[in-house]
Structure formats: structure tokens, C-alpha cells
């Protein structure tokens, strides 16, 4: 009675930052921070491995930028400890100011000094007196850094306002790289760029930092950016870390419904859990680690629900949204015949009738009113029922969200 094909998705790769938590570069331990009466961070614990990339992702106001500013040394934590490479930089009376932490920082708008040329910006953190070769060495280093971020060394003479947004971000990165920091903090550095430039700049920045082997922390509110950039994703919500893990794990096995919906579109259905099999309008779907038995909420990613001619599940198209490469299809599910028989006399599950949203590449296949055959691929994630009345009325409208 299983209607799923075995997962063809790759096994989750184990991120270095998750595996080797003993060799952590940055350790944040139970850090709290209040601004006046408002608590912004409520006990955050996070560890980042040397050379790893971590994305802190969360909606605006979740405290992610505050966390980054604590790491940089722009703010003091109220309680808790922060240590870099084993030595404590904040907490319990210890305090290392920002300029002594050797942490690189790239702000949202780049934060280039408007009164200095590009070259002067990059060499701002370099001390000509301390470098062997003095000013000539500085010039060489600036050219080197500009090439590193794929910019023409001739640009050193320009002024920041003569550069495009993407170029400014690259200069800001070069400036932060100049002092060869061991840890780089990126505070939404791509969000001010337009869509095409954002992806290209993100890739270029990621490659530079990876090649240099610099531990990187990226703060962003863009889930796609977090998932593609980092090998460890920390989901932040309401001043707490809701989940930490590698991108594949947090996307496919989110810890709770809110995380699931924040990280991407999710289809949420009421289901009945027995053993490791959940029964719902989409049939019986395996769940890896069921958190509860009986009534649960089941989460699937829209891409796990495929339109297939031999699919055992039926749904009627309600409406569609055309986006070019793909079409969003809203479907009203009908009760699967087998399930209908199996549970007709059974009060445990009254499925059918939910409206879910899936995606498909072919716009012509889905006309409103058409009946489609569906198939579910892979495992689902089950969440315990939220605090709803225990006797949910039969035929509860589906909670398929997009």
C-alpha cells in the first residue's frame, strides 16, 4: 500500500562544520542581547568550523544582524560567551574590541569610504609602515586584491560613486580581505543588488573566500541564497536558532512547520501516523522519524508531488499562475479510492478535498477543471499537531500553502 518510489535524491552530504564541532573556529555560547526592554537575542548557541561557510537566515527582526554585530565586536552581549579560535573575545568580563579581532566585515551597502579612492579604501586597513617594502608593496597588494575579486587593477584610481553596486561590493570584499582575516562576516551583502547581479556576485564572493580558506558567516533573509552559499545553515526566528544543519537537511527535514515554510514552499496536510507510514489525501507516505503517532501534520515540498500519467492520486486543477519556465498549479485533491474504502468506516482520517499548490514546467497540461494524476516522490516530514481542537471537523480545508 505504498505509493512512493524510492528517493532518487542524493544522500545528505555531511558538512565539515557539522562533523567537526570540536575544532570550531567560532563558538557562541548562550548569548543574549536586549535593546532597552526588547530582547533581540534569547540564548543563541552556535559553533562554526574552521574554513566552513555558515549562513544565518531568518526573517527581518529575527536578530540575525545583531548576532553578526556581536561577533564583529560592534556590540557587547548581555550574557553568554563568544570565542574566536579558542580565545574568549566577549563575555564574563572579557572584551576584545572590534579592531583587535581580525574579523573581516562587509556591510549591506558595502560601506565604502566616499572620501577615498578605491585603492585608498582597499589599503585603509594596511599599515604601510609595517609592510616590508612600504608604499610600493601596498600598491602591489591593492592590485593583487582587485584581481582576486575579478576587478581591473586600474580601478584603484576611481571613486566609489563611479562604481556599480556589484563592483562596490567586490571592492568592499577586497578591502576586508586586505588584512587576511581568519573570519569573514557578510551582512546581507547581495541584497541591494538586482537579481542577475546578485547571483553572479554571490558566486564570485563565495569562490574567493573558499579559495582563501576563510571561515565565512553570511547573514541573509533570502532562503535560496542561504541554501546555495553555505555548508551550514542556521535558521533564526524570534531571537533563537530554530535549526542548524546542512542545507539539504534543513530544507528536506525542517524541525518545525514555521522553519519549513520559511525555507521554501511547503504542502501541509493533515495525516494519520501509524508506525512510519502517514496516511493522507496523497495516500500512504513514509516518514523517517515520526515525532508522534496518530494525528499529525505532514509536510512535503511541492517538487515532491509530480504530475504522472500512471499516478495513483487524482486532483482537479483549480487555477494556475504562469511564470515562464514553470507554472504554479493549484489542485483540489480527491479522496484516493483505496483510501476511501480503507478508512470509510474509520474515524481516524477524513481526507480529501484539500487544495494544494505544486509546480510544473508544462503550462498546457494544466487547464482549470482538468483532472490530473499525481505521484509522490520521497519521504515526508511529520510535525505534531499544533494546538488545535482535538476533534478537527471532517474534511478540513487543506492547508496547502505556497
Amino acid at each position, binding site marked *: 500500500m505504498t505509493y512512493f518510489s524510492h528517493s532518487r535524491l542524493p544522500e545528505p552530504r555531511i558538512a565539515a562544520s557539522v562533523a567537526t564541532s570540536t575544532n570550531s573556529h567560532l563558538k557562541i555560547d548562550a548569548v543574549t542581547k536586549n535593546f532597552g526592554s526588547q530582547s533581540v537575542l534569547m540564548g543563541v548557541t552556535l559553533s562554526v568550523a574552521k574554513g566552513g561557510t555558515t549562513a544565518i537566515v531568518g526573517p527581518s527582526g529575527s536578530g540575525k544582524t545583531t548576532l553578526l554585530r556581536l561577533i564583529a565586536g560592534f556590540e557587547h552581549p548581555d550574557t553568554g560567551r563568544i570565542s574566536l579560535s579558542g580565545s574568549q573575545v566577549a563575555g564574563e568580563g572579557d572584551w576584545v574590541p572590534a*579592531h583587535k579581532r581580525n574579523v*573581516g566585515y562587509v*556591510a549591506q551597502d558595502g560601506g565604502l*569610504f566616499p*572620501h577615498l579612492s578605491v585603492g585608498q579604501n582597499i589599503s*585603509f586597513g594596511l599599515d604601510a609602515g609595517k609592510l616590508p617594502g612600504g608604499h610600493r608593496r601596498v600598491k602591489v597588494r591593492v592590485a593583487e586584491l582587485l584581481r582576486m575579486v575579478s576587478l581591473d587593477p586600474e580601478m584603484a584610481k576611481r571613486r566609489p560613486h563611479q562604481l556599480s553596486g556589484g563592483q562596490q561590493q567586490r571592492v568592499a570584499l577586497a578591502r*576586508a580581505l586586505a588584512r587576511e582575516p581568519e573570519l569573514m562576516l557578510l551582512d546581507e551583502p547581495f541584497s541591494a543588488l538586482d537579481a542577475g547581479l546578485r547571483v553572479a556576485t554571490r558566486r564570485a564572493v563565495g569562490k574567493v573566500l573558499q579559495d582563501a580558506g576563510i571561515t565565512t558567516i553570511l547573514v541573509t533573509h533570502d532562503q535560496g541564497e542561504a541554501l546555495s552559499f553555505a555548508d551550514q545553515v542556521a535558521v533564526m526566528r524570534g531571537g533563537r536558532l530554530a535549526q542548524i544543519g546542512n542545507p539539504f537537511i534543513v530544507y528536506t527535514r525542517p524541525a518545525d512547520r514555521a522553519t519549513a515554510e520559511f525555507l521554501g514552499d511547503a504542502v501541509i496536510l493533515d495525516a494519520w501516523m501509524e508506525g512510519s507510514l502517514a496516511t493522507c489525501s496523497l495516500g500512504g507516505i513514509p516518514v523517517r522519524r515520526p515525532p508522534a503517532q496518530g494525528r499529525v501534520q505532514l509536510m512535503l515540498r511541492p517538487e515532491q508531488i509530480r504530475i504522472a500519467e500512471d499516478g495513483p492520486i487524482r486532483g482537479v486543477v483549480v487555477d494556475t499562475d504562469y511564470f515562464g519556465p514553470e507554472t504554479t498549479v493549484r489542485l483540489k485533491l480527491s479522496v484516493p479510492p483505496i483510501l476511501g474504502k480503507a478508512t470509510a468506516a474509520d474515524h481516524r482520517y477524513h481526507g480529501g478535498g484539500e487544495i494544494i499548490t505544486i509546480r510544473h514546467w508544462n503550462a498546457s497540461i494544466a487547464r482549470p477543471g482538468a483532472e490530473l494524476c499525481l505521484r509522490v516522490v520521497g519521504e515526508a516530514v511529520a510535525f505534531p499537531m499544533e494546538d488545535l481542537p482535538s476533534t478537527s471537523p471532517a474534511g478540513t480545508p487543506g492547508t496547502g500553502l505556497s
Partner: protein
Amino acid sequence: MDLIFRARVGELLLNTVLLMLVTVPACVILGVGGAWLVERTRLRGHKWWAVLLAAPLAIPAFVNSYAWVSAVPSLAGLWSGVLIATLSYFPLVYIPAAATLSRLDPAIEQSAASLGLGAWRTFFRVVIPQLRIAVTGGALLVSLHLLAEYGAFAMIRFDTFTTAIMVQYQSTFNGPAGNMLASVLVFMCLILLLVEVRGRGNSRYARIGSGAQARPLRLPLRAYQLPAQLFLVALTALAFGLPLTFVLRWIFAGGPDSWAADEFLPALLQTLAYGLAGALATTAVAFPMAYLAVRHPGWFSKALELSNYITSSMPGIVVGLAFVTISINAAPNLYQTSALLISAYVLLFLPRALVTIRSGLAQAPKELDEAAQALGKPPLLAFLRVTLRLTAPAAAGGAALVFLAIVNELTATLLLSPNGTRTLATEFWSKSSEIDYAGAAPYALLMILISAPMTYLLFQQSKKAAGQ
């Protein structure tokens, strides 16, 4: 208390109130009318008129008075005061009104037109209400100037509180009568501040919505082009042409003798020295205040700003008297020292520096300071190399405004300056008081020349600030 209610006080009160009741509306009409002609009609040469209408501000009111007395020696009393004050101060309304008019979103007027309002009704029902903040602000400035002005009214023998206080001071020095009169003056200033807060209102007049704004609409003048031009010619001739002409006439009449280097040069040098010292001191005091207000806003910085707003609206004569009283009673060593005079300048002109430095600090966000710290610069060095460096142009602009204000300051300088001090303003004053009009002319000309750039700077600044 007896002193306050003497008939003399009643007379002064009547004079001062009448002066304000006539002059302020006259300034508003001339200022708003001029601004509307320049900014919203197809006036020929409106770019030139825009600058020319602000130009009378470059002529200190007491120089204006001197020129008018030279032209019409019989001038005296209320109506002469009104004439001279209106011609001197209408640019204080014109400048903010023009700045606001040039920034008004024409879409609002177009909406009014689409709702069936004609051009004139649109002007009165839509445009005028939007000018409220600019006009009340300008009217407050005119009123405060009217309360504070000494030289212009003394020259035409028109008595206001300020001239009466000066007379009391000169006859009885630190007498109770002068202090009582001053307290009435302070009271009037405070009432004006309250009225202005009320008049400003709470409505929102900022532009709502995003996107670039279209250029303002200009009404065709057609048959009114000639009357409009004639009106502006007359206004500029009276407010700017006449004083300049008479100053120049006296200079030619006086010949080279009036430029006696042994008198002229020390006055110029002392004026420059006081101006520089006062400008530097004011900027040094204003910077931390502006920094607090921008970077650490809180009750302390607000209270500091409010108290400064009130003291700086006090007439120079009140601040001068206060400094005299305090220094004589508490620190006699300080009385009539240049240090005391410079601190009075700081108190009087602090807002000019404060406003410019604040807008300059806004150009140097905290994030840049932090970026410098993340690049290994200790906080103090980061502040010096980034924040201070980026604010320097604004601070210089503020210092320039203070410098030029000090050059034209007369009342506080007369009260507080050390013996033997000669500034351009005091020297001009003593010569013209002795009816040596030819001898006074070079000082007047120099003050106008130094003031001209300040006026232009103010004019430019208002255009930038109006959008905020």
C-alpha cells in the same frame, strides 16, 4: 515691579507690537508673492530674480537704515521702522517659501485641477496651506529680528524694547530698569516660540509616495508680465539698490580720506580675529552636540537642543546683559574680556553651526566608522579618519555662517567688547552716530561684501534642505 508698569513700558510695548503687527504680514506678503512669481510663473529671468530677491539679506538692517536716513533725512517713527524692517527682513520669508514652492509636487496641484479648481483657487486652497511651515518659520525669524534689532531703529529714533534697554544700559549701566525691560523682552520671545509651535501644526506636508517628482508647473503671466517685472524692479531697487547706491555715494563723497588706514585696518583685523575665534569656538561646541543628537538620540541630547533653541532665539541685547550681570557678580575678572564676548557669540550663533553639522553627520553613517574598526583601526582613529573627515566640509560651512554673523553683530559686541575694541560694525555705528556718514561708508561696504557670500550660501542651503 513698579518699573514694568510705568507708562514708558506701555509706550514701548505698543511700539513693538504695532511694529510686528504691520511688518510681519508685510514680509509674508512680499516673501510669498516674490517666491510664487519666481518659482511658479513664467517670469522672464526668474533665475536672476531668485537670487536678487534674497540679496537684501546681505545688507545689515542698520546699514539699510543708514542709507534710508541719508536718502530721506526726515525719516522717523513707526512707519519708517516698518519700511526699513520690511525691506530688510522679507527675504527671511522669501527664502524658505521659494525653497518649498520649488519642491512642491505638481501632481497635487494637478489633482486639484482635475477636481475642478481653477488656477487661483488651487493656489489658495492647495499651495498656500503647504507653505505653512515655511511661512510660520520665516515669520518667527522676522519677529525675533524685530525684537532684537537695535541699530536700525536707533538710527531713525524709533523706540522699541531693545533700543530702550540700550539707552538704560548706557545711562545707568547695570541698572534694574534695563533688566526689567529685558525680562519683558524675554517673555515676548518665549510667547513667539509658543505661537510658532502652534502655528506649525501637526499635519503632514511631506510628499507621500515614491518615484521621481515632476518639475513644478509654471503659470503663464501674459498681460501681467510687465506689472510683475515692474513690481520686482521696484522691490529690489528699494531693498537692495538704494542702500548700495547710498553707501557708494558716501564713499565717493568721502574720497580717499575715509579709508584712513590707521583706523580702518585695525577694525578689519579685529573683526576677522573675532569672527575666526568665534566661528572656531562655536563649531567646537556644536560638534559634540550634533554628534550626540545624531548618534545617541535621547532625552539628554533633546533637552540640550531645546535649551539651545531657546537661548539662541534671545536678542543679542538680552544675552549681552545677562553676560554683563553674571560676569560682574560672579567673575569680575572676565568682564569685558574677549573670552566673554566670544562665549556670547557661541551662545547666539550655535544653531547656525548645529544645523549644518547635523546634516553633515548624516552623510557619515555609523556603519562607516564600524567598517574602519573592522579594518583594524582603534575607535578614536576610526572617528578621526572617517567621521570627522567626512563631516569637515559641513563643519566648515557652519563655521563660515557663524563667522559672517559675527562680522555683522552689533548689540552684544557693543555691550561686551573689551575697551578699545573696534569691529566693522561698532566702528560703523560710532561714526554714523556722530553723523560722519562718509566715514562710516567704507565699513558698511565691507560688511555688505563679506555678507554677500553668506547670503548665497544660505540661499543654496535652503534649496537642499527643503526636501527633508
